[in-house]
């Protein structure tokens, strides 16, 4: 039951109504012009995932390549691994770790309710991953500062510790990431293990491992291309290609398996239900295929002619492929932020009916307007219900989407928002709020009337 008590008005928040013990639309909304919250999350997340996957693959690369240099008694290769370790630390320990912190900051600001859920549901999972993070950081610092101090065996052991810790962190985080799309039985039980070891868990491990190996191969092509022409350069470039090839066996398997585990609705979106998403899925696969082909033709067949520019291009393609894949993962989760539990606009699925009855302007704690007949009510409804996915102009802009729609048509479309494209939650508000929103959306395109 909602317990509403109309409260004395404060100057800035007129007509504030407070709901006791109701976790409905609890937080203020951070408005980022044009980019939008979704855009910012995408930006930070893609950059981080790109470097973080490299960090995981790179651990195994360092351990194996260092051992290879010892085994083959190749001082030139060893010197290369040593300089690689500096590049690796500067990229992963600083940029990788901080963008990871950045994701935390970002999701807390953009989707505080969902972030809070993830923390409450998985706090000990986060804590476990933190232990591995600690081991990882210590091992990385020791590894690159003790080339001259530790004996070969001990130094190589440190690399293995780093690789193991980094991989286990991926295993831990992966459970929480996949939970957001495929929460499985957790929805009924709220049991940690049901949520963490969810249906998407293993396919995603395979997919992410493949991506980690592929990216370390691509980074090796870049650093290898910096080497002076000669025997070592050819050796390193071909060796790098050997990391890329197996990844392209692993990743498609992971992808198909993952698609099979997606909820019906999400799979429908990914495989053609929504043309944009299907296009992105195809782009991600097409790019991956092109990378494979170019690595084979360039680095494997003709390493002598392989240039730094070409390596950078391949790495850029890898970045875009990572970005599109993450984007698809985001897209198939819509209209939810936590599949089946919470909509993208932070409304709990279980609360949707109540919000619809009572009204979003009444249930949102921070709404500045409580009255649907207020001239600015439509804009406030838009802020509360739509801003998580739409900017007016900019990220997924609503202005062009509603061009040419009149008020009646808009009101009708809003009443069946959840069926429009399969991306959107149902409109959760009263008929008066819906009308106010329709009027606001019509006012966005004055010339079209």
């Amino acid at each position: 039951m909602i317990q509403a008590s109309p409260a004395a008005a404060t100057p800035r928040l007129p007509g504030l109504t407070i709901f006791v013990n109701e976790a409905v639309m609890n937080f203020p909304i951070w408005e980022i012009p044009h980019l939008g919250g979704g855009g910012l999350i995408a930006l930070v997340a893609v950059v981080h995932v790109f470097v973080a996957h490299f960090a995981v693959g790179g651990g195994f690369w360092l351990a194996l390549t260092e051992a290879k240099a010892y085994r083959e008694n190749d001082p030139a290769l060893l010197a290369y691994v040593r300089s690689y370790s500096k590049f690796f630390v500067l990229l992963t320990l600083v940029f990788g770790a901080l963008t990871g912190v950045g994701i935390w900051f970002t999701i807390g600001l953009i989707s505080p309710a969902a972030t809070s859920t993830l923390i409450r549901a998985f706090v000990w999972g986060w804590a476990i991953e933190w232990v591995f993070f600690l081991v990882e950081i210590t091992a990385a610092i020791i590894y690159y500062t003790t080339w001259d101090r530790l004996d070969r065996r001990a130094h190589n052991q440190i690399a293995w510790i780093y690789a193991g810790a980094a991989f286990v962190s991926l295993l831990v985080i992966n459970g929480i990431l996949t939970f957001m799309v495929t929460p499985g039985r957790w929805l009924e039980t709220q049991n940690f293990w049901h949520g963490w070891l969810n249906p998407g868990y293993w396919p995603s491990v395979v997919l992410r491992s493949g991506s980690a190996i592929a990216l370390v191969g691509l980074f090796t092509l870049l650093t290898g291309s910096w080497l002076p022409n000669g025997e070592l350069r050819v050796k390193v470039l071909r060796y790098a290609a050997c990391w890329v090839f197996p990844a392209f066996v692993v990743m498609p398997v992971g992808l198909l398996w993952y698609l099979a585990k997606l909820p019906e609705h999400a799979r429908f979106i990914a495989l053609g239900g929504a043309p944009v998403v299907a296009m992105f899925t195809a782009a991600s696969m097409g790019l991956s295929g092109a990378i494979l082909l170019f690595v084979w033709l360039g680095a494997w067949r003709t390493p002598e002619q392989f240039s730094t520019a070409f390596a950078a291009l391949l790495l850029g393609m890898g970045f875009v492929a990572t970005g599109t894949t993450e984007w698809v993962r985001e897209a198939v989760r819509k209209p939810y932020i936590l599949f089946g539990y919470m909509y993208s606009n932070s409304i709990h699925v279980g609360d949707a009916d109540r919000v619809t009855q009572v009204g979003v302007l009444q249930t949102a704690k921070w709404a500045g307007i409580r009255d649907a007949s207020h001239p600015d009510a439509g804009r406030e409804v838009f802020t509360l219900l739509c801003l998580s996915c739409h900017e007016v102009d900019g990220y997924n802009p609503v202005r062009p989407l509603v061009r040419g729609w009149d008020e009646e048509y808009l009101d009708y479309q809003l009443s069946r928002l959840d069926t429009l494209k399969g991306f959107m939650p149902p409109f959760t508000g009263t008929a008066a709020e819906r009308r106010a929103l329709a009027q606001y959306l019509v006012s966005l395109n004055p010339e079209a009337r």
Partner: protein
Amino acid sequence: MNFATLPIPSPDLLPLPAPAWLLVGLSVFTLLLHLLAMNLTLGASLVAVWATWRRNESLARLVLNTLPVSTAMTITSGVAPLLFVQLLYGQFFYAASILMAVPWMLVVLLLMLAYYGFYFNYFKSAPLTACNVAVALGSAFAVLAIGFIYVNNFTLMLTPERWPTLINGASTRGTALNTGEPTLLPRYLHVVTAALAVTGLYLALRGQLRCGAFLFGGATLINIGFGLWFLFALPESIRNLFLGGNAAQTGHLWGGVGLAIAALMLMMLAVNATRPKPLLIAAALVLVLVVDLMATVRHFVREAYLTPHFDVWTAPVRPMWDVFALFAVTLVVGLGVVAWMITKVIRARA
């Protein structure tokens, strides 16, 4: 102020995953670790400016070698208390963060700049040049700014009565700071000065005895002043808890002050001793205890501020002991591995 009218978010629907005492305990303990590392980073980044500017090669070498590692430790140890504050006080923390979203996001950018600056000076510092000074200055400025932003957020989350004045409607551009807060400045100065004191002790331990002792002594004395300013800037009802109103809380605060003075005396003995090391180690142990007491006092202050709105001790709990046990085992094994790696390195030097 009628608290019932404030837009304070409801606590998360999911119960706490462990009893409050465990979560609060872990939150204070991990904050202690973070404060030690953070103090060293903040203090060393300031000392680095001075040392590079005066071309003091040996002092500069010491702090510049310390900074990359201490920063890594600061970040790693900081993740844990940030996790627990979101778990225990998420409804306050997220709301305040959103109101100051832009500066809050800037933290990540500033930290990245500072960190790369530390690495730059770590790799290129012999002989010291004006470039090293400029980079050290930039990094120190970034670190100081981060501290200021943190103090803004962690005071704003305690004062929901200020929230409605910082926003108009449901959305915000997120550019607010909590500059109307009377404790903001003393709280910030108290932390920065404490960082200099901790760094002074570290320098003394690492062979810069006179300079370290001077820094530690000076900062500690000044900080008693800032601490009193902070205390008297607190709302009266909260201040009184530490002036006899609550025996345990009063004991924590003044015990901490007393021990800080004890550490100061140990340091003075060390400066004139023929074998200063044991005295310095004793001073360091006492100082860790001081920081621990102060971290606890900080928690008492937070609870006192939030008491009218929320009581973490009565929040619903559904413990996940099995996962917690796994965490505990992982922690023991993880720390074992870290210790093993560090002994390997130390042995190898011998």
